[in-house]
């Protein structure tokens, strides 16, 4: 068993403190409460049973009711004074509070007053209990998208209802479809809705900021078997592209799902990625063009050059900014 000694110690002490307050608890319930297997709980009780104060005579040891244990119920009869639950260490408090604070700020939590209230109250109780403010770790998740959309999505998730959405793809194509929502993945860069799409008859991932409108329907969701992993990697069928970036584009290697990264001299690096979506690749290369050193296959670069040239040509025909408005102030300043 690969469990670390310190993790196990925390649980061993935790079980004693918990049982001291809870009275007799069935093994299965104790295992669920601490998120471990029943086998583990039995091992833990065995370890506790022979632990105690120096001397280690029967009266020195932590003790359980043996009859009740035979029947699968753990009843603590001697705690050897270990009845106080442990306070949170600094790093534990930091990890917990930072996660809760990031969650509190999401539109998915704010969309429902009851949900927001629960997160707020648990955060308040724990900040009281941990004492110090855990500001050393500061995480902000992506703004999910339109508040009405997020409210409809989270409400449908809780109720288990089907949604009708208007969606625009990365290629700027709009469509209307009905979906059975599975889970809302609010991440640090974007938020995604994982769902069963009735139009595509399959599992689909929708970026929430591209859901233009969402309506919760009365219809309950159907029970589809959907792989819950939203970070699935593109299938091996898609063609490969190889791109060499200069050092300043380093973030690409961590933000984009790549097959491989190879470091080159001077901080340059080469990534190989699967092109499941040519529009997406064109956007990536256009955004980062200054730092692109090589592109394979060449047709991909040609596609990027043509699209950019067309846009530059359109600027040549664009009339001067005609309307006074918020942009006008910035123009005067510039």
């Amino acid at each position, binding site marked *: 068993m690969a469990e670390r*000694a*310190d993790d196990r*110690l*925390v649980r061993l002490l*935790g*079980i004693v403190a*918990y049982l001291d307050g809870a009275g007799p608890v069935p093994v299965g319930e104790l295992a669920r409460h601490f998120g471990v297997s029943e086998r583990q709980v039995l091992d833990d009780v065995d370890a506790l049973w*022979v*632990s*105690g*104060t*120096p*001397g*280690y005579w029967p009266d020195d040891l932590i003790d359980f009711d043996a009859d009740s244990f035979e029947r699968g119920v753990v009843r603590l009869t001697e705690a050897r*004074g270990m009845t*106080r639950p442990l*306070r949170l*260490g600094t*790093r*534990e408090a930091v990890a*917990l509070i930072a996660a809760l604070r*990031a969650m509190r700020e999401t539109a*998915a939590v704010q969309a429902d007053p009851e949900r927001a209230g*629960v997160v707020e*109250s*648990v955060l308040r109780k724990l900040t*009281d209990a941990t004492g110090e403010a855990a500001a*050393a770790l*500061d995480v*902000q998740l992506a703004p999910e998208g339109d508040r009405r959309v997020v409210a409809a999505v989270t409400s449908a998730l*809780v109720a288990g209802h089907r949604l009708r959405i208007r969606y625009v793809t990365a290629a700027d194509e709009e469509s209307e479809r009905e979906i059975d*929502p599975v*889970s809302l*993945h609010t*991440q640090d*860069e974007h938020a995604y809705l994982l769902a069963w799409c009735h139009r595509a008859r399959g599992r689909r991932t929708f970026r929430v900021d*591209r859901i233009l409108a969402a309506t919760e329907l009365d219809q309950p969701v159907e029970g589809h078997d959907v792989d819950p992993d939203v970070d699935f990697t593109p299938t091996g069928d898609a063609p490969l592209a190889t791109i060499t970036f200069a050092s300043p584009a380093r*973030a690409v*290697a*961590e*933000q984009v799902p790549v097959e491989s990264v190879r470091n080159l001299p001077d901080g340059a690096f080469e990534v190989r990625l699967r092109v499941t979506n040519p529009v997406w690749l*064109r956007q990536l290369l*256009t*955004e980062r063009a*200054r730092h692109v050193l090589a592109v394979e296959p060449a047709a991909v*670069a040609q596609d*990027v*050059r043509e*699209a950019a040239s067309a*846009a*530059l*040509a359109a*600027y040549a025909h664009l009339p001067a900014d*005609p*309307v006074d408005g*918020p*942009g006008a102030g*910035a123009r005067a*300043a*510039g």
Partner: protein
Amino acid sequence: MPASAGSPTNPAARLLNLVIALVNTNASMTKQQIRASVAGYGDAPSPDAFERMFERDKDTLRELGIPIVTVDAGGHADEVGYRIDQDAYALPAVDLTPAELGVLALAAQFWQDKTLRTDISRALTKLRAAGAGETAMDVVAGLAPRVRPVGDAYGTLMDAISARRAVSFTYRAASTGEVRSRRVQPWRIAARRGGWYLVGFDLDRGAPRSYRLSRVEGRVRATGPRDAFEVPVDVDVDAALGSRDAGGVARLAVVPERAGALRARGTVVGSVPDARAGDGAGRDVLEVPYDVRYAMADEVVGYGDAVLVLGPPDLREAVVRRLRAAAALVLPAGSGSAEVGERG
């Protein structure tokens, strides 16, 4: 000794017996008493091995929030006694509702790193020990907030922030690709828009700086003494990352029916003629607020000629700069489709 305390080589059992012994001792225990009487320490083959074992166990317990205090054991002048004060380690009463436990269960899934996962699951084990009954997930059903892994540097950096120790690491500058050693007083670790950052005080530059952790090469090392500096109370992470003053309202000329994602965040305020299109055809003028200029520029160039920037000028310049580079993508210098026209 009637019962062997667990398997003699089991460190968890040894730690447990040490905690029980030091909580229950009348005054304190000396090292000799610990070695002679606490189950598990008799295994140490030599005084040195015992010293190492005991020091390591003390560190482990301190990290878990169980501080061992030293007291004058009386008797011999240099005799130090050890004990654990339960009031110092006890969690204040926390009474959590089933729905609040559901929120905690969700938070337990938040981190993708092994280090942060360990930290948060240990926190949950401690909170579960404090009582609390059923967990109810309905109020957060279907939610899955996640943040990408921060990487190996996290543990060292967080411990250095807690201990207020300086760190040093090798860093690759974004602008030049130049690799250099940095000495930094760490203040905050932050995640924003898909990147992890360290914000702190650069000792060589004598000024606050931020560092993208993906640009740190090799290991981060804590250097120098503890309590070497104070973390300012009001560190403004967003200001340090330069992500606050670059916002504004974009005025965009958008081909009709296009760019639904931008339209959803903006307002159509008028139209402009499109000189290349047929009679009467024009573009909608759309105003879209944005927080970060470079992110808005990246988004706009993705639409190619369907979305053009009217203003503000700095956004327009950022977009045109990207387009010029893209129009010459990987062409040899001077072979120039980059000349394609763009006015002032």
